[in-house]
């Protein structure tokens, strides 16, 4: 949602002219963007037609921009495409998932300036915005590497007392619903979603309500990477309204909740029993997202895998 206090326009170039009621026609009129959510690889507005206004501190005197305010129907549409994308995404080789994530890092690097500017417009100092963007891109690189490695760390050969080969391997869960942390808006969203999709799951993310616009700019980068449509779906809106719908959806396998109020978390956990959803809550403070050693731990991936044990006889 829009930040309560709009940033003033002090940093923007002077565009007022006192002699003419404050209006000067610009030499060239800029083209504004209609921000859209990313669902199934498509850019969509909310089917509800609702919108949320977000401040545009770069603009003349407090102009606001509009981002979609997703509805229950948008959530349900996103689940359908995320469920559809899961088959293909989890069926790809781990190496291929890693390649696609690395490609995403390349696409984000090319949009580094745009992402940082969006964070600034969302209220960050320029240097913090630049740092967050850089760390977020490196986080993608790091998870690209995890795609074909976590299996070696989580799996085991079990020395059962008998003539059997017995091993345990991780597999993906399915569709995971994510509430991204309010801050850091970009790094937090990616940091939450990356371990989930690295493991072969697909995700529906409810973006930061403090800076929803950056999530939609990120969506534009996601759509131009090699990531198949539907693997990451980005919705903007109110978590308090949408999370309960995700929590009770039968096709959602797990929830990953960041910075959700205790009451809302309890509500989600109660609704989750309908199909025995795995509900993970992760409470780390804003600074911890920047700590690469902690935030790239494979334990974040381990929260979103199922373990399968296979018995096979051994004998001539």
């Amino acid at each position: 949602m829009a930040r309560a206090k709009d940033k003033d326009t002090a940093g923007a170039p002077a565009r007022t002219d006192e002699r003419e009621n404050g209006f000067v026609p610009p030499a060239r009129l800029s083209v504004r963007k209609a921000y859209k959510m990313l669902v199934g690889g498509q850019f969509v507005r909310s089917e509800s037609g609702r919108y949320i206004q977000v401040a545009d501190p770069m603009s003349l005197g407090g102009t606001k921009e509009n981002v979609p305010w997703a509805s229950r129907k948008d959530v349900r549409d996103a689940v359908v495409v995320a469920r559809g994308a899961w088959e293909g995404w989890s069926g790809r080789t781990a190496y291929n998932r890693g390649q696609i994530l690395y490609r995403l890092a390349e696409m984000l690097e090319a949009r580094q300036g745009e992402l940082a500017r969006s964070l600034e417009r969302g209220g960050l100092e320029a240097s913090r915005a630049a740092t967050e963007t850089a760390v977020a891109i490196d986080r993608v690189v790091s998870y690209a590497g995890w795609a074909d490695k976590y299996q070696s760390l989580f799996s085991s050969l079990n020395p059962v007392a008998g003539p059997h080969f017995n091993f345990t391997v991780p597999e993906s869960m399915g569709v995971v619903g994510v509430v991204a942390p309010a801050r850091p808006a970009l790094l937090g969203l990616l940091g939450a979603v990356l371990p989930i999709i690295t493991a072969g799951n697909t995700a529906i993310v409810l973006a930061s309500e403090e800076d929803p616009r950056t999530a939609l700019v990120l969506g534009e980068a996601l759509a131009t990477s090699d990531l198949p449509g539907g693997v990451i779906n980005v919705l903007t809106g109110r978590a308090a309204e949408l999370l309960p719908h995700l929590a009770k959806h039968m096709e959602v396998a797990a929830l990953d909740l960041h910075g959700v109020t205790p009451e809302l978390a309890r509500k989600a956990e109660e609704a989750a029993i309908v199909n025995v959803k795995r509900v993970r809550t992760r409470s780390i403070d804003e600074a911890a997202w920047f700590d690469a050693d902690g935030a790239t731990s494979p334990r974040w991936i381990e929260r979103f895998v199922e373990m399968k044990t296979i018995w096979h006889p051994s004998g001539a």
Partner: protein
Amino acid sequence: MTAKETIASATNGETHAAPSSPAQRAALEFGKAWTYAPAPEAADHVRIDPRYELFIGGKWVAPSSGKYFDTVSPSTEQKLSEVAEANERDVDLAVKAARNGYEKYWSKLSGIERGKYIYRIARVIQEKARELAIVETMDGGKPIKESRDVDLPLVAAHFFYYAGWADKLAYAFPGRSPRPLGVAGQVIPWNFPLLMAAWKLAPALAAGNTCVLKPAETTPLTALLLAKIIEECDLPPGVVNIVTGAGATGAAVVAHPDVDKVAFTGSTDVGKRIQKALSGTKKKLTLELGGKAANIVFADAPLDQAVEGIISGIYFNQGHVCCAGSRLLVEEGAFEPLLQKLRDRMQTLRVGDPLDKNTDVGAINSKMQLDKIRELVEAGEREGAERFSTPCELPTRGYWFAPTLFTGVSQSHRIAREEIFGPVLAVMTFRTPEEAIEKANNTMYGLSAGVWTDKGSKSFWVSQRLRAGVVWANTYNKFDPSSPFGGYKESGFGREGGRQGLLPYLEVD
């Protein structure tokens, strides 16, 4: 009844030595039906410099001796380029550059930054994959089909895989605070020139070491192109140094007192000499040496699949493969149908111009190697085994050897004991799984093995009893950067690939 008697009765007097024998005529005759129009890979976009210097400290440096040696195409015997010959002084410069690169730059980088450098290398290799494949084929003689579809994808994948470990070492060996060793001296063979460079450099760099790499003297070109790629990727100077030369250059790399770790892939003979040279020093060592792998086919195996596995097991890369399935062990009941299928399939192999996209078997890597293959094949005939070579026309220029198999082989024959490193298969038989295992393990080597059976429990049972570092069940010659590779016994020690492949390049508590 001995194995040899078994074969004699099973084959019922049929001789496989002469393709014109009546039994042979009864087999499928492909003749001209298998002649394809030429399909040469276009190579005119590939530029090979007339001369290559040494890559030391991020610069191209002339050898102190002023000496250069030719690298020739084994399929045409034409000179492709000339390459600097590094002596002890040059190697010393390279080790100093590597030490400097380690202390000044590489050891000071965070894991993620090191990883990003290695990702860059992986990406440029993908971008230049076709060019590298063509040069690999020109310099080494392997079919373009293999360099393009096997070597190069694996090279890129290897760099990608280990790039991803660079910031995760603490998770690879939890609680053991892994640290790099320093400077790695690496000596690699000519059978998979660029792939072996990748197997050596990628884990070493990811673990935080700097490298001095010595490619084989018959196949230096792709390693030098890799040096150019490393230059383009803006790696800090001295992190990777490439010194070309023959055995003496390799010996200088291995013996240099400021090298902390030595990694060698090549023959068991040279491996033993290196192990001796390093004894009493604190240097860490890994060796990936020769092999004489058994490919075991049970009567309940899917025979058509097995034939494909046997063919790729021994004729892939002209048999210049340390893990080649060079001993075929067949359960008696399957001997006759399997050998018939095998001889038929062998005749469909197209031998010739490695740059032709239809070629299955390319040129033998060098005159020296061709002489060694001929010597062992002659020994096989002299010792009484029966030879079958496919009746294919071989080009007049270059080094060639037709796909060959021997039946009537006993375990004491040289062709059953020694690594031929060529397209020559020794076929033996067995009656029980126990006998198969005993024969398979009756070798000083222990690099790899194959098992073919439709019974899953049997494939596990046999795999567990084979003394080999890699066992392929119902498949053969499969490689992946996430899968550790390396030998038992005199096939060497240490593993390349996977999490285990990091260990030789790390000090762990």
